[in-house]
């Protein structure tokens, strides 16, 4: 049984002129000339005020008192706010968060108060003068401890929290959400399996490290209108959350405006609302003046969303012929102090934690556990990178145990179109087998390579990935489109240009439909007053969703253009087409009416009157086949995910046996983009995502002390790759098995490219050294000491 797609996107002719070409980014010139404006670059004049926050030094404590007297008397101070000024809850999927801590602090760095002053220096100085007294409590710093019997309740009121209907909190525990999948009979399947492997994998927390820190400028004008300039992936969702959080002050959506210019990298960290709520709230205290709140790099590490850590207990059963018969995957997520967004990561992972395989018997449990650590939230991959590490390591181990080639094992079990998913719906068209074969070829899988260097060994590894956008079933996109006198086009959307090339892709889609060159199409960054709605730029869904909205707007514009031509010249619509910025006619080759002649002015008829006028259009898209009806006890019965993007990753690495240093000599990654609207941009996601994924497994190493304080909140000690730390060669492979309901067949790829990086390294290290490492990161030190332990053990055995 295949899924039917109620909206069939416009079926492309194969003579595409723009879609499928590596068009130069329309924002490229802004970015290499210094013209690109980010929030911190906007000038607000001499009236700009600055805010600095007061943070909790404790991971878990009761606030006994806050004394602001000395701070209030400091130079330049305008106003100080604490939790008492804003005792309101809010949240994306669950309302468990506060603007400032109320009564309790739940992670080191949580904001307790904020100072507004006339200069940045004065704000920082005054913030140091705020005196807070705490009763320090024992923090819970790992999820297993937090679910143990008798553990302190970090959110005693959990049972009363408002949340989306498809979350299942366990009241009077630290389990904020529990997604269960029960399918078939795993107990029976394990007992009948020829081979069963069980193990636990540990994945720690990670930081997004966008180079632009979070920053916000907020102003409540004298008419009572709140405008917030933010570096955000989600202007409309931010407006919604600001309105919700400040509703007690009388705000509704019409009173709030969010403006987002270019964003210097998001990776999920700038989705939802994190520090911006502080700025928005503070603005309500100082009417008429804009207030800037900019995070330092340190705050960027510990007081924005982090990628949750997870303890993954995995059990897989197979038959001797390699068929997977059962998967039992239990995920304990270290979700942090507030899970309003992060609980959806847990949900998304729970639905798909079988990985891209055909599995008849499934028992999956994905538990969102409160801990006294920074709030977990959306991060590129949204839970999938986290569980793929264990899963794809595990698959390699099983293949070896039953004597099967790791690639053949995967091909045998890889999910294909029509297969039933864990929750009952069915798999979309996908090129997984093609991706596997091309990746394996690219790294010469099966051919062992020898190193010239006596200190090093060469190893190879493969891993698969899949992911579906994790969204509410009614996430939508919309677009306005208008022409200008010169035949150029403005498109307004509220998707965000984070660097992925979104504006360019939207322009290419419109260009294809309207035959206007890409460099005559502007796509404007969001302003919630002027640009129509977009849920968020997350989930790798905007090429698909916003692309459909833009395509529909372009199609509407085209039909209006044809209507005017028909009105004036009599040609039937189906005889008309657009080419080279003009309307042409199949039945009259001499007819060619340039768009610039009439898209504003209209066309003058024989009697001197005019027809037409400004060509404007709109488009919107919301999937109408998704629902969140899944049964809380089994996960069955719903259709929560629109479709999956799949692919494969392979590496050839060289490792120094003594130092543990790893050189990635070659990395190949194949992803099924459906249709690569701009192959350069897809390759950009492959290269960028792969390097970010490799960074999580090779270099990034977040550490907390026993008090729950992050020890390395700087680039000095939290290492993200430099130009030296990349593979010698990256081979990007674009597979195109069209997504039937995608614009020109496209589906998203932005997150997917990092998902398999961690297990592929684990697998290649095992191939090279015979050492299986089941915890991340797999650093030089871990490799060197694990290998040393192995050879020491082996030589002791021999003696």
């Amino acid at each position, binding site marked *: 049984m295949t899924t039917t797609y109620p909206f069939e996107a416009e079926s492309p002719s194969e003579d595409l002129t723009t879609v499928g070409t590596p068009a130069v980014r329309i924002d490229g010139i802004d970015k290499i000339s210094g013209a690109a404006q980010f929030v911190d670059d906007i000038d607000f004049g001499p009236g700009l005020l600055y805010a600095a926050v007061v943070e909790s030094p404790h991971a878990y404590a009761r606030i006994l008192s806050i004394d602001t007297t000395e701070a209030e008397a400091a130079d330049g101070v305008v106003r100080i706010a604490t939790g008492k000024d804003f005792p309101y809850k809010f949240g994306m999927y669950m309302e468990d968060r506060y603007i400032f801590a109320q009564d309790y602090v739940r992670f080191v760095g949580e904001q307790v108060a904020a100072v507004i002053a006339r200069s*940045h*220096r004065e704000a*920082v*100085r005054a913030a*140091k003068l705020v005196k807070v007294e705490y009763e320090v409590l024992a923090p819970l710093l790992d999820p297993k401890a937090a679910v143990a019997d008798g553990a302190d309740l970090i959110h005693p009121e959990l049972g009363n929290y408002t949340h989306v209907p498809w979350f299942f909190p366990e009241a009077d525990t630290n389990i904020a959400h529990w997604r269960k999948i029960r399918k078939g009979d795993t107990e029976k399947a394990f007992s009948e399996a020829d081979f069963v492997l069980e193990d636990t994998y540990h994945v720690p927390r990670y930081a997004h490290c966008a180079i632009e820190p979070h920053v916000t400028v907020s102003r409540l004008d004298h008419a009572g209108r709140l405008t917030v300039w933010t570096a955000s992936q989600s202007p409309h969702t931010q407006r919604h959350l600001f309105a919700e959080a400040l509703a007690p002050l009388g705000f509704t959506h019409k009173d709030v405006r969010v403006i987002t210019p270019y964003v210097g990298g998001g990776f999920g960290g700038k989705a939802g609302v994190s520090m911006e709520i502080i700025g928005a709230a503070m603005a309500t205290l100082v009417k008429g003046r804009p207030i800037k709140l900019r995070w*330092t790099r340190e705050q960027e590490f510990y007081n924005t969303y982090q990628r949750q850590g997870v303890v993954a207990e995995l059990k897989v059963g197979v038959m001797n012929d390699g068929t997977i018969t059962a998967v039992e995957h239990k995920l304990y997520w270290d979700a942090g102090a507030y899970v309003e967004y992060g609980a959806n990561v847990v949900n998304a992972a729970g639905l798909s934690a079988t990985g891209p395989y055909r599995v008849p018997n499934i028992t999956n449990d994905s538990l969102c556990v409160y801990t006294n650590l920074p709030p977990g939230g959306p991060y590129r991959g949204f839970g999938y990178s986290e569980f793929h590490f264990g899963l794809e390591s595990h698959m390699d181990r099983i293949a070896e145990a039953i004597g099967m080639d790791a690639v053949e094992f995967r091909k045998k079990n890889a999910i294909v179109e029509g297969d039933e998913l864990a929750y009952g719906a069915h798999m979309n068209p996908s090129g997984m087998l093609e991706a596997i074969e091309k990746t394996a070829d690219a790294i010469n899988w099966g051919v062992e390579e020898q190193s010239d260097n006596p200190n090093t060994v060469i190893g190879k590894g493969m891993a698969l990935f899949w992911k579906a956008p994790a969204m509410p079933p009614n996430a939508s996109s919309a677009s306005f489109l208008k022409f200008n006198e010169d035949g150029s086009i403005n498109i307004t959307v509220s998707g965000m240009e984070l660097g992925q090339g979104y504006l360019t892709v939207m322009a290419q889609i419109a260009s294809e439909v309207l035959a206007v060159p890409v460099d005559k199409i502007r796509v404007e960054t969001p302003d919630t007053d002027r640009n129509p709605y977009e849920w968020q730029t997350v989930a790798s869904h905007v090429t698909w969703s916003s692309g459909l909205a833009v395509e529909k707007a372009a199609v509407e514009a085209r039909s209006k253009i044809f209507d005017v031509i028909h009105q004036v010249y009599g040609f039937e619509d189906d005889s008309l087409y657009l080419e080279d910025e003009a309307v042409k006619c199949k039945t009259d080759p001499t007819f060619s009416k340039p768009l610039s002649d009439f898209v504003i002015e209209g066309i003058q008829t024989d009697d001197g009157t005019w027809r037409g006028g400004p060509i404007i259009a709109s488009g919107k898209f919301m999937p109408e086949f998704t629902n969140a009806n899944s049964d809380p006890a089994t996960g069955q019965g719903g259709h929560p995910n629109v479709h999956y993007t799949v692919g494969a990753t392979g590496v050839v690495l060289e490792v*120094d046996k*003594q*130092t543990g*240093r790893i050189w990635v000599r070659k990395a190949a990654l194949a992803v099924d983009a459906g249709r690569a609207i701009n192959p350069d941009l897809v390759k950009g996601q492959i290269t960028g995502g792969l390097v970010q994924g490799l960074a999580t497994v*090779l*270099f990034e*190493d977040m*550490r907390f002390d026993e008090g729950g304080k992050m*020890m*390395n909140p700087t680039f*000095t*000690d939290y*290492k993200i*790759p*430099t*130009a*030296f*730390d990349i593979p010698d060669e990256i081979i990007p492979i674009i597979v195109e098995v069209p997504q039937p309901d995608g614009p020109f067949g496209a589906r998203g790829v932005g997150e997917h490219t990092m998902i398999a990086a961690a297990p592929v390294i684990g697998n290649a290290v095992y191939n090279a050294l015979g050492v299986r490492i089941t915890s991340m990161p797999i*650093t*030089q*030190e871990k490799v*060197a*000491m694990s290998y*040393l332990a192995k050879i020491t053990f082996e030589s002791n055995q021999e003696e």
Partner: protein
Amino acid sequence: MVISHEFDYRRPSSLDEAIGALAEFPGSARILAGGTDLVAWLRDDAVAPDLVVDIKNVPGLGDIVLDGTTLSIGSLVTFTDLIESEVIEEHAPLLSEMAETVASTGIRNRATMVGNICSAVPSCDAGPVLLAYDTTVHLAGPGGERLVDINDWFIGLRETAMTEDEVVTRVTIELRSHGGVYVKLMRYAGEDLAQAAVGIVAYPDLDYRVAFGAVAPTPFRSTRIENALRGSVLDEALVAEAVELVDGEISPITDMRASAEYRARMTEVMLDRGLWAAVGRLSGTGPDYGERVI
């Protein structure tokens, strides 16, 4: 974050003026050269001086000169200056090899080698290399010039022999034909502080100098290992003997960057590979300066 501490700033145009400024603020003045350490410390509130004395306008501190066998490197010489100097390339390429491992170009264009040994963090890159050379530190103070042997320079954790009223004017190195190596353990190929470091100089008369960094509160020379090596041609047995001694010489810590065990184990590997590289370079058969041995 801004620098929230207030201080005065002076830019003297002579050495005497600089020394005079330090004397006006005894114990609460800081010398500013490259600034890549000091400005970061000011922002972190790690230091709170009343006066910052910018010595970049003091003449005569920025030269690299070889006079006979004495190489003189002024206190304003940056790591980039070392890398681009023909004198260094020809006579002491080990300094250039070390300089290339420091941070990145934008830092090296400002940071000075002398500043590096004045900040004297345990992982300072110049430490092991200057200790492996015959180096003298030249200081100017109210009492005139003072010389300090590099072996007397690092006296404690982030503490040097310099007093609060002095300015380092240059370091001098007595050069003779040699092969050397600076081996730096980093967490990846991009910029990093040394997690362990070994500086080695090998002379044709079978004299060896071995110094360590980042594995003790200060960089230090191991005369014990040097004595074990001295007078012998390098062979596997000799290297193994030297490696055997490492554990007793170093006192690495476990911190969030690396464990003591890994640092100790790697120091052994680095000494091993480093000795072969240094001796190889002496005879012209070793790896090129700048080629990493780990």
